[in-house]
Every structure is written in C-alpha cells, then in structure tokens.
C-alpha cells in the first residue's frame, strides 16, 4: 500500500491570497461609488485605466522574467494596486498619467524587487508620488463636485477630456478652472491651504461652496464610504486595525491640539479626518501588509507615524495632501520598527 507523505499540519483554513485581495477590492466599492457619485465618470475612467495598465504590466514583466503568469494574476495584487491608484488620481487627469503611474508602480514599485511580497514601498503610492512631482498641474486639478455645477459634465465630455485633453467645447483642464462650466477646481484641502497662505483666516478660507458641509462638500461622504469599507476589512482581519487606529488617532490629536491653540489658522480634527485621502489612506493604503510593519506594537507606531506625517505635510508642507509621502516614509521605517518591537515570546518573562 502506498500512502501519501506530508508534514504537519495537514489542515489549513480555506482562505487564500486571491480571496484576500478580492475582499480589498470589494471593500473599496462603497468609496468608489461615492467618488463616482460626487465627481462623475472620470473616476471610472481612471480606475479602469490603472487596473488595465497594472495587470498588463504585471503580465508583461512576468513573461519577460519567465515566471508563471496565471498564479500571479489570480492573486489579484496587481488589480488592487490599479484600483487604489485609480481612486487616488484626480478624476479628469489625462490618460497618460494613469498609464504612466500604474505602469511605473508595477514595474519599479514591485517587479524590480522580485514581485509580490518583496517590495519595500507601496507600489500605488510610489506611482502616485512620481506623478505628483512630475506633473503637479494635472495632479492637483480636481473635479468640482457635480452638485456644485449648473450643467454637470457628461460621459462624452469626460471621455474627451481624459483621452484628448479637451472637452467637446475645446476647454482644457486648466481653462475649465474658471469659466462658465467650472468643471474643475481645487480640492478643499488645496483651497484652504492656498487661502491661508495668502493671509486669509480659516473662516474666510472655508467660506466657499466646495468647503461646505462638515468636511468639504462631497468629500465627507467619500471618506465615510471608504471608512465603512475599511471597517469591514478590519472586522474580517484582512487589514490590521492597529494601523488605521494609530493613524487616525494621531491625526485627530494633532489637529485638535493645533486647532485649539489657534482655531483661525489650523483646521479642526473633523476637517482633517474626513477630507482628502484620509480614510482611503488609513484603511486601504497604509494597511498594505507587505510594506507595513508586522509586529503588533510596530503597527501602532507605523500608523501613528503616518498620521503625524500627514498632518505635518498638510499643515506645514508644500503639498495639499501628504498621504503618499507619509506612507512611503513610514514604509522606509517599517523594518526598523519591526526590529525594535519584537514581542516578548512565551517563557522570556520580563527580560528585554
């Protein structure tokens, strides 16, 4: 009789990597829907282009490396990178931004290090930062929330703007900023930063339609939706709750502290927590396990570090939002955090 040999354990939980990653995509759906509802078809274009480019680049590089393509694609990690970058890009950024950014994310953010699991930096954020420093104009022109314009941009105008660089009326991203169809505008974070820089007080800066609501028109709902999906990830233990908890807590504490000392110069905690990429970053980007710290205490510090950096960059730095930079900087610190926070193993008592 021939019997199979196998080392223990002989049983494993059914959950696999692909299912894991698909959960991340599903959890991003509420936020994506909120973005679409707020800013229109551009969101769909960006996500689609990023996903397509990410997966195509992954397949191409794997073919060049003579590695099996199918398992790497079915684990859906390239898809996740594409989705996250697509959601982070301005909805009407030109098509080559999405293609260039996501191609770079997969090629230089992931595959040059050896592929999935070996990359030190979050690929999506690496692509985002490359675009931000290379094409600051395209990357900081956001869409105006659809509810704030008299004639919302339609599907054809959107497609034309993204693919041809101008709408059917030959308006470009920049000219749309001020015109009859003010389809693009600064994001609330950007607007407030510019106004404060020009010497206005915070209340004056916030007195604009796009900063209405408790945290910027439409942005509050986008962030709430991402937060909801993020909570699902935490409950399912796909994302570690310590990272978003640490990050949001740090952001809250810093924003509260500064706003209490001078409420006319510093935005409050609610504005910070529900604006820009806060929730997307906290739950979907900072929690990328490959590039985050892995020890329990290390994850707290990792999250707190991102929260602090986000606040510092938003408030004192040159960019309106700091999520991508904060995540990349903390990615750099993750191995050290892991080393410094080795938990005390069973039987090692109180000794260091």
């Amino acid at each position, binding site marked *: 009789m021939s019997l199979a*040999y196998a080392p223990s354990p002989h*049983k494993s939980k059914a959950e696999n990597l692909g299912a894991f990653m698909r959960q991340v995509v599903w959890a991003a759906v509420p936020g994506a829907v909120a973005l679409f509802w707020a800013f229109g078809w551009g969101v769909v274009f960006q996500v689609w282009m990023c996903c397509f480019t990410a997966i195509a680049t992954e397949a191409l590089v794997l073919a060049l490396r003579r590695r099996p393509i199918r398992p790497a694609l079915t684990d859906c990690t390239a898809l996740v990178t594409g989705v996250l970058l697509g959601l982070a890009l301005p909805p009407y950024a030109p098509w080559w931004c999405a293609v260039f950014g996501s191609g770079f994310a997969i090629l230089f953010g992931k595959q040059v290090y050896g592929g999935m699991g070996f990359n030190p930096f979050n690929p999506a954020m690496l692509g985002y930062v490359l675009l931000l420093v290379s094409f600051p104009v395209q990357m900081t022109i956001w869409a105006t929330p659809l509810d704030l314009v008299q004639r919302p941009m339609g599907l054809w105008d959107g497609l034309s703007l993204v693919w041809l660089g101008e709408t059917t009326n030959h308006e470009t991203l920049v000219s749309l900023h001020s015109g009859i169809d003010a389809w693009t505008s600064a994001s609330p974070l950007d607007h407030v930063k510019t106004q404060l820089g020009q010497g206005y007080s915070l209340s004056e800066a916030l007195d604009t339609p796009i900063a209405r609501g408790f945290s910027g028109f439409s942005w509050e709902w986008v962030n709430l939706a991402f937060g909801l999906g993020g909570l699902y990830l935490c409950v399912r233990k796909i994302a570690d709750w310590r990272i978003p908890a640490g990050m949001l807590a740090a952001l809250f504490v810093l924003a509260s502290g500064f706003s209490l000392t001078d409420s006319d110069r510093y935005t409050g905690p609610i504005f910070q927590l529900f604006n820009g990429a806060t929730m997307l970053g906290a739950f979907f980007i900072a929690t990328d396990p490959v590039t985050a710290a892995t*020890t329990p205490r290390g994850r707290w510090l990792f999250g707190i570090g991102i929260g602090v950096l986000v606040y510092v960059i938003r408030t004192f730095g040159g960019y309106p939002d700091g999520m991508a930079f904060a995540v990349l900087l903390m990615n750099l610190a993750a191995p050290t955090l892991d080393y410094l926070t080795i938990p005390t193993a*069973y*039987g090692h008592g109180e000794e260091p």
Partner: protein
Amino acid sequence: MSPAAPTPNLGYGGISRLWTMPGGVHPPEQKDQSNSTPIQSLPLPRRLYIPMDQHAGAPALPVVSAGERVLKGQLIGRDATGRGGNVHASTSGTVQAITEHTLCHPSGLTGTSVILEPDGEECWFAHAGIPDYLAAAPEALLERVREAGIVGLGGAGFPTAAKLAQGNALHTLILNGAECEPYISCDDRLMRERAAEVVEGGRILMRILGVERCLIGVEDNKPEAIEALWTALRASGEERMHLATLPTRYPSGGQKQLIYILTGQEVPSGKRSSTIGVLMHNVMTAAAVYRAVARGEPLVSRIVTVTGAGIGLPGNYEVLLGTPMADLLNASNAHGFHKLIVGGPMMGFTLRDAKTPVTKIANCLLAPTMAELPPPPNAKPCIRCGLCVDACPAKLLPQQLFWFARAGEDHKAVKHHLFDCIECGACAYVCPSDIPLVSYYRVAKDRIRAEREAKRQAEHARRRFEAREARLAREAAEKAERLKRATEARRAELAANPEAQAAIAAALARSQAAEPAAVEPVAAPPEAAADPAAARKAEIAAAIARAKARKTQGAVPAETSDSHKDEPAP
C-alpha cells in the same frame, strides 16, 4: 454543539481564575465523528509487533528469546538506562522472532521488535496491586510506575517515572484533559467512562510528588467528560483536586499553554516546567498509573481514536500495543483514505505503511479522504499579513522566522526565539499564502542544532588539544625542575663531604697529568714542524693512505663493518 454545562465553570475548591492563552486557532473540531460510541475492544490480532522503542529515550533491551512462551504483562524488554521505559507482552503467546520492524515514528525507520503470536488465552502473569496505595511509600509507588513501563500517553511518550523523579520542589500537578487537537477523542471517552481511574491516578501521582494541589484542565467541548470527572471527584472526597473548564481553542492542550491558562505562569524558555514547580501528565497517563499501582497491571494496551472520513466505523478502541494499524483499519471498515496520520491533523505524522504497529504514543489513527484533508496548494509569496502573529501561542513572529529560516539567517532566527516554537502548526493553518511554515522552522532548527553540535565538537577538540599541549609543557617543566633539584642535591651532598671532594681533586689532578700524553699522537711531530716541505710530503702520504683504507673498508661486507662497530672501544 455542547449542551449547557450542568457543572460550574471553575471548581471544586476553586481556582481563582483562568488566564487567556495568546494566539491559537479554532479549526473544525470533528470530534463527533468518533466520540459518540463507547470504547470498544478489537479482536485479538494474528500477530503483534511490539517495538522496543515506544517512548522518548533509549530503546528497551529484549529479555526474551525466539520460541519462548510469554504471559500477558510479562516483561519482554528492559529499560537499561533508567530514562526509558520497560516493554511488556501485550497478550500471552509465543515469541516468533526478535527482528527489525517499522516503528511508529515520523521517520518510518525500523527498530528491534518482538514478534508475538497470541495463543488466544489472554493469560496474565502473576501480578498484584498495592491495595492501600494512598498510604504506601511514595518510593514504592514510583517503582511500580517505573516497572509498568508507563510513558506519557498524550503522544509525547516521555517516560513517566523519569518525569516524576526530577527532584525539583513542586507545588502543583496538572492533569491534561484538554485534548485540543481536532478529531481526537480518546481522552474524552476515557474521562467519560473511567473518570474514577483518572482521579485515583491523580491522587497516586500527588502522593509520589508530595504536592498538595492538582488541577484538571478540560476543554468545554467535552461536557460529558466534565460531568463524569465532577461526579468521580465528589465520590472520591478528594479536596485537593480542582476541575477547570477551558475555552476550546487549539493548542490549549500544549504543556506550556495549559500551564499558563491554569496558573498564569510561563515556563522559562529552555527549562522544564518543574522549574516553576509544576508538573503535567495526561489524563490517560494518570489512569495507566492507577492500573499499574492499584491492580499491578503494566501498560499493555491503550485507547486509540480511529477516525476520518475514510473510516466506516469511527470510534475509540482499546488496542493491545503492537497491533498493526492494518488490523485497526479492518476492524473499523476503512476505505477510500489517501493517507494515514498518527495523531491529529495539526501535529500528527503520516505513516508509510499500515503494518506499523500501535505503540504507547499512538493516540489517534486518522484516515482522511482526499476531499477531507486535501494536500496543500502550492505556496505563494509571504505578504506579511501577520495572521500568523495573531495565531502564534508562543508570541513569536512566524513571518519573520520564515524569512530568516528561508534565507539561512540562523542567528536572526535564534534572536527571534525560533527554539520557543512548539511546532503546533497554528501559523501554517491560517497562512493565506499556504506556506508550510512549520517545515521551514523544523529545517532551520535541525540546521542550527547540527551547527551547534559541530561547533561543540570543534570546541571540545580544541580544548583537548590545548589541554594536551599544556600537559606536555607542564611535564617538561617538571622534569627540568626535578633534574635541577637532583643536581643541586648532589652538589650539596658533595659540599658536605670532604672525602669525596678530596677524591675529585685527586681525579682532576690525575687527568691533568695524563693530558699531554693523550694529546701527543694528534700533535705534529717536532722534526716535521722544523722542515715544512717534509711535513707537506708526510701529509700527502697520510692522505693517500687514508683514501686507500676507506676504499678497502667500502668493499668489505656490511656484517664485517657491523661487527667492527660492535667491538668495544679501547
């Protein structure tokens, strides 16, 4: 699945609280496949293969010979080291041979085994128990345990007597009835059906150890066993034993884990539990101790859970040690399994063939179908998700250990406490990338152990070499010192003896007087010195004569030259 427990959660004398085990997992329990029927006995096998190696430590030495008739319970293998276990005939019959046979061991290696053909009479050797065991001398009880060949029946097979005789100051005995591995239910059935034996065994162990507290830990998925133990405890009137119901969570039955859950103490890394005053035995070991002491029966059988979807009649069987697994499979109507696992799905090992006999460590024979426990999918890259960190009961960082083990960075693995890994498999169980983490740790541990052993041997050789060098130097110095002392002593003796001094002075004078005569033939004759040309001629003539003499000498046979040499010097 468990009905509301009729017993209080903690208790009988009371344990103040339970501690929560860090990590752990909760795989499907699968115990109801096998735990609903009473313990059954098997028909007597045609042949028993009783290995001398059924325990941790050196194998026993056979004390019977082929053709000999043995009685049930008769000693057939003696433990010569005091740290192993005796082996007894599982039934009466004839020794067919003493030969190599497959061991019940992960390696699948063979070992010396006594092949016994049962005569069907089940005729016991003469034995008697110690009736008043709770008043007997602890030494006598310990000796009984040693003679009976009892080893840890939870699966580790550590010799019980050696464990009991460790000699540390103890305060608590723990009986492990957690049985946290999925599928296994032999301890469950034992506690349900023979709770009194477990309790009495525990009392005997307490007497041997001289401890005043015994805790019994049982997972809360075994309400019937808890009820039975509760009843037995009340009936015994024993007030020093306390029953604790644990939350069902794998691996709460691990020794270190159960000690922590019940006492809140951690066994220091690399030490035995006795260093913190705690000793743990499996409930089945306690029952075996009771039978050995109270009835005088050595360990000749054990309860084995036979289960898995490949088993037609799953259940628990009282199996004679040495029974081939194939007999168990036949009796339980097995079909369609794709592997055989001894132990549970988390820590058990696979068997190469079904001829392997049941031994003292075989708590469960699991025969799963392909659909039930499929082979793991190919491993994918680690994404450092950290689920393994949450699952590790030893509070390690399995994902970091994996990177170090794979990269051969052994010193880092050791720094991350690789050797505190108990190989429970919880990390591999939860891994979404299907990485066989435990295998990586085993390989790394073996590599480090081999390296340490090589280093130890090299160090040993170096020490030996250095010691030898030092010894030789010391001996040389001592010899020189002795010589010096002897010379000095002789000088002193001479100085104190005028007669000897006079004799030396006389001898010196004589030799000085004789010196010119002795030198004369070597010195050139005075007339030759007067005439340089004649002297030169004489020299040449002498040289020619010497050369001639050498030639003739070279021609003579070696013997002659030898005999020449042997001539006494003038």
